[in-house]
């Protein structure tokens, strides 16, 4: 019975073995986890945000644990697009799973330059545009519909690959931003990025993060993320990748019932590197138990009368 369940997912042209992805910034370049898990079992890997030049990231401390959550202020510490091409992407071609490159820039121009640098590079299944990093300066595109649409248009022009726009939850109405990205040419929307937040050390009276504020991720934010995925998936025609606090198959299924065609696992990788793999199995069992033959059958079927 279990065998007959079809988990394959076509996310805007990215063909995945299953709908469970590893979220940007939480899975490195796949290599570190390779000794702990079988990367091939995961639907796709989204790489850490890459920028035009290498970036050092923020002053430590960069992490604080909060109730059922993790606050981070990494600050897009990365090796830069040229090193990515030279050192990482070649090795990833044999990863056996689609690789999605996540890009970030301080302004439209930088985004465009990164996407240009990636043109014709082999072994990239898709591009995720990070409009929403809470830990760096620059325009927060995800908080302004016009800016978001403009950015997508510019990236779109240079990019033949499937294009995923990654949104921030810190907005009044996320459907407006999602629609703007759709209009700008995005092939899919992914949400949510971590939530702007902070924590204070009452003894030193200083912020617990070197960067003062950071982004909240993990189970704490899951109910917020589920609602946003539900709203966005009703508002746009392109597929949605849901994330935010997914720890288990049941969490992933919540997102899919709410309308996510695929899901991404972030913080949970740190807690249990096998999470994504276990979720793939769990979704399979759920589908089989409930008489579904294909994972697409549960996408958006939430009965919200």
């Amino acid at each position: 019975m279990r065998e007959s369940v079809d988990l394959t997912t076509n996310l805007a042209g990215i063909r995945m073995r299953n709908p469970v992805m590893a979220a940007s910034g939480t899975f490195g370049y796949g290599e570190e986890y390779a000794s702990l898990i079988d990367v091939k079992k995961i639907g796709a890997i989204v790489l850490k945000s890459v920028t035009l030049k290498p970036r050092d990231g923020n002053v430590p401390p960069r992490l604080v644990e909060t109730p059922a959550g993790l606050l981070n202020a990494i600050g897009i510490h990365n090796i830069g697009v040229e090193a990515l091409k030279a050192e990482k992407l070649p090795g990833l071609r044999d990863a056996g799973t689609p690789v999605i490159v996540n890009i970030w820039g301080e302004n439209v121009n930088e985004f465009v330059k990164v996407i240009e640098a990636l043109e014709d590079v082999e072994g990239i299944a898709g591009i995720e545009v990070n409009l929403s990093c809470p830990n760096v300066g620059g325009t927060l595109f995800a908080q302004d519909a016009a800016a978001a649409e403009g950015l997508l248009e510019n990236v779109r022009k240079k990019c033949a690959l499937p294009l995923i726009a990654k949104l921030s939850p810190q907005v009044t109405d996320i459907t407006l931003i999602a629609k703007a990205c759709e209009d700008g040419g995005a092939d899919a929307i992914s949400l949510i990025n971590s939530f702007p937040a902070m924590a204070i050390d009452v003894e030193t009276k200083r912020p617990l993060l070197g960067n003062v504020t950071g982004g909240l991720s993990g189970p704490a934010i899951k109910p917020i993320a589920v609602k946003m995925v539900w709203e966005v998936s009703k508002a746009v025609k392109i597929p949605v990748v849901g994330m935010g606090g997914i720890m288990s198959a049941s969490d992933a299924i919540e997102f899919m019932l709410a309308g996510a065609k695929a899901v991404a696992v972030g913080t949970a990788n740190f807690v249990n590197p096998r999470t994504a793999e276990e979720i793939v199995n769990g979704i399979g069992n759920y589908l089989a138990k409930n008489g579904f033959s294909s994972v697409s059958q549960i996408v958006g079927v939430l009965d919200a009368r």
Partner: protein
Amino acid sequence: MKQKILSNEEIAPGIFRMVVNMWKEAQKACPGQFVHIRCSSSNDPLLRRPLSIHELIPETVGVLYRVVGKGTDLLSKKKRGDVLDIIGPLGCGFRTKPAVEPVVIVAGGMGVAPLLFLAQSLMNVDRHMRAKQALPQNRLASLPLQRRDVRVLIGAKTREFILCEEEFTKLGCSVDIATDDGSYGQEGYVSSLFEESIRKKKAGQVFACGPNAMLREIAAMSARRAVECHVSLESRMGCGVGVCLGCVIKTKGKDGISGYRRVCRDGPVFDAQTVLWDEFISRL
């Protein structure tokens, strides 16, 4: 990655020694490496907690920890037979050189945790090599001790927090003690013991673990005498395996170029002269 607890005892006020059944992954562990432990199956606390490998006795891994917050508090309540989710060994350990002597080991407070394993390993220099070749696993412990000049300096607040003295002695190390209040050994900091020790005889290699202020002093003293010094550092960790870039500290390379390095993967043991101490300590 589920491992069974064999014992978990309070050996000093608030300090526990826990031994878990864990061999497949652990047998190749090097001193200075750590294990990453999930203290609760709930979402709070969410993250794993890093603890240095304190002892590696065939089939088992021992850790030594102080209860400081909710993670370690939960750990301290685990009982024999309970199962723990552990990843590891992780990180890069102490880079020991076979021929250099004397080796000086400096432990401040809980810093003793990784250093006992280091001493065990130093005294059985080729233990790992042999293990991989011929010896059956359960006979590793019975390997003969080497005769090496290993000097262990232990410091703590008071007598009751001087840990592992007997274990080091049994291995054949010389042991000197300092306590802040003079309740045992010399009164004062362990860094004074160290100062005396290297004044008397220049060390071949120095390995230290303890409070940051102490490590910085040991690093400075070692630098003054041009002695190689390795320190084991702590930092708040996310993944523990090198992907999140959350645990970084700023270091300078031999070429003078500074940059962030990951405590979990490039460390936790660093060459003390590469650590930018001011920056490291001010940010904690």
